[in-house]
C-alpha cells in the first residue's frame, strides 16, 4: 500500500519566482539615478503601501531590492528609482524601453501614512532617500485639509466639514544641486502647501536653497511634539543624526520612523543576509520605529 505523498511542486510565479514586467518608460533623474516605469506582461498587478520594496531582476545579471517610488493607488505603471552602484543596478539603469524586468513583491513594512490623520508630518530625505518616501509624501500632501494660504505654524484654521488639517514639512538634503531628485515633484508639493526646504553640501551662487546639513534645517523648524510624526530616509549616518536632532526638538522616538537597509537577497526572510540584530529587515522593516531597539542597533558597531 503506497503512502501518498506530495506531488512535485510546479514553481510558477510565487514568492520566489518573479513576474515578468516590461520597461514602458524611463527618466534620468541625475547622472547615476534613473527611474524605471514598469508594467506587467501577464501579472494582474498588485497593491502596495508607500515604503515597501520589490526585488527587481535584471535577467542574466541578478536581483536587487529597490523601493517602490510611485504612489500607491495611482493608475499607471509602477515606478522604481534606481541608483547605479553595482552590476545589477547598472543593468537596470541602462535598461531601454521594452526591456523585460523581473518583479517580486511587494515586501516589507510601510511608512504607515494612511494612519497619520490630523498629525503633522516631518519628512526628512537625504539623497536618493527621497525615492522610498515619494509615495508617502504624495499621499500626505494630497490629503492635507487646509489650503496653503491658511497654513502657518501655530495657526489652526478650521475648514468646515474637513476637520483640522495637518502640516507636511519636507526637508530634502543632497550633495549638490544637480543631485536633487524629483525636483518637479518637490515644486508641486510646495505649491500644494507643503513646507519644503532643500539643502545641499556645496553649491554655487545659482542655487537658491540652503547650503549645509539637513540636521541644521531640522533644528530651525517649529514643531509641535504632541502631534508630530517624522519619516526619515537616507544614508544611515544621516538618519541617525537626523533622528537625534528630532529627539532634541522633543519628538517622541516612537514617532520617528526610519527606513533601514542591509544586504537583501530573498526579500522573504529566508536567506538571512538582511539581519540587523533581532530584525530581519525584509520582513520586520525596512521601515522601523526609531524608539526601542533600533536606536541602540544603529549605535552598535558592525552590527
Amino acid at each position, binding site marked *: 500500500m503506497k503512502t501518498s505523498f506530495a506531488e512535485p511542486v510546479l514553481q510558477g510565479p510565487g514568492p520566489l519566482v518573479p513576474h515578468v514586467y516590461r520597461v514602458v518608460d524611463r527618466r534620468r533623474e541625475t547622472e547615476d539615478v534613473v527611474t524605471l516605469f514598469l508594467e506587467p506582461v501577464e501579472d494582474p498587478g498588485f497593491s502596495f503601501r508607500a515604503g515597501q520594496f520589490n526585488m527587481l531582476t535584471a535577467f542574466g545579471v*541578478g536581483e*536587487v531590492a529597490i523601493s517602490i517610488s510611485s504612489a500607491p493607488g495611482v493608475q499607471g505603471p509602477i515606478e522604481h528609482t534606481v*541608483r*547605479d*552602484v*553595482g*552590476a*545589477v*543596478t*547598472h543593468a537596470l539603469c541602462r535598461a531601454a524601453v521594452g526591456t523585460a524586468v523581473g518583479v517580486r513583491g511587494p515586501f516589507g513594512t510601510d511608512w504607515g501614512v494612511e494612519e497619520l490623520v490630523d498629525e503633522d508630518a516631518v519628512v526628512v530625505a*537625504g*539623497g*536618493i532617500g527621497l525615492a522610498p518616501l515619494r509615495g508617502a509624501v504624495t499621499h500626505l500632501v494630497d490629503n492635507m485639509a487646509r489650503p496653503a494660504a491658511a497654513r502657518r505654524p501655530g495657526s489652526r484654521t478650521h475648514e468646515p466639514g474637513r476637520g483640522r488639517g495637518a502640516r507636511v514639512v519636507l526637508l530634502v*538634503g*543632497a*550633495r549638490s544641486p544637480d*543631485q536633487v531628485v524629483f525636483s518637479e515633484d518637490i515644486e508641486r508639493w510646495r505649491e500644494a502647501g507643503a513646507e519644503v526646504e532643500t*539643502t545641499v*553640501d*556645496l*553649491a*554655487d*551662487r545659482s*542655487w*537658491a*536653497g*540652503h*547650503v*549645509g*546639513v539637513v*540636521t*541644521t534645517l531640522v*533644528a*530651525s523648524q517649529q514643531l509641535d511634539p504632541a502631534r508630530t510624526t517624522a519619516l526619515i530616509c*537616507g*544614508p544611515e*549616518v*544621516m538618519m541617525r*543624526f537626523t533622528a537625534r536632532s528630532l529627539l532634541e526638538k522633543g519628538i517622541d522616538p516612537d514617532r520617528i520612523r526610519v527606513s533601514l537597509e542591509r*544586504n537583501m*537577497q530573498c526579500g522573504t526572510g529566508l536567506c538571512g543576509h538582511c539581519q540587523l540584530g533581532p530584525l530581519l529587515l525584509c520582513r520586520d522593516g525596512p521601515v522601523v520605529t526609531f524608539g526601542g531597539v533600533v536606536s541602540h542597533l544603529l549605535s552598535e558597531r558592525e552590527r
Partner: protein
Amino acid sequence: MPESIADLVAEHPLLAGLPGDVAALVAGCARNVAIGAGDLLLSEGDEADTLYMLRRGRVALEVRRPGHGALVIETLGPGQVVGWSWLFPPYSWQFDARATEPVGALSVDAACLRAKAEADPAFGYELMKRLASVILDRLQAARVRLLDLYGEGSREGDDRGPRGRETLAR
C-alpha cells in the same frame, strides 16, 4: 512701540534665557542694520570686527576658487550668527558672507564686546559658552559633510559583493 536694541538682542536665540543684564551689555555694543540682497556683510581677508546676529533673511558663506567662481559652503538664516574670527587674533575673516536676500541683523562691534568680556569675566564666560555651542554645532555639521554621505556606494563592486577576490580582514 518699536522694540529697543536691548529687546532685540535679548530675543535672539544666541542669548535666549540669559539674564537681562547680559543682553544689555551686548546691546551696548550693537546696532540694528539692514543689508541689501547681494551685498557683502564681510569679506575674506578684511579685519574681523563684527558679530552679526541674524534676524531676517538669508546669508551665504562663500569661498572664491579661481576657475570655479564663488562656492557656497553654508547658508545661515534668522536666529543664527555670522562671524567669530573676531574672537582671536589675527582678527581676519576666513570667508565672504553675502546676503542672498534682504537681511535684517544686529551688528555688534567686536572690539566693544571683547573689552566688556575682559572687564567682566562672568559676562565673558556666558558669552563664550553660547558662542562655543554655535561653533560646536557648525563643526559637527562640517564633519558630517566631510563624510560625503550622499556619495556612498561604489561603481566597482557587484551589488552583492566585491568583484574579484575578497581579502580576509581580521
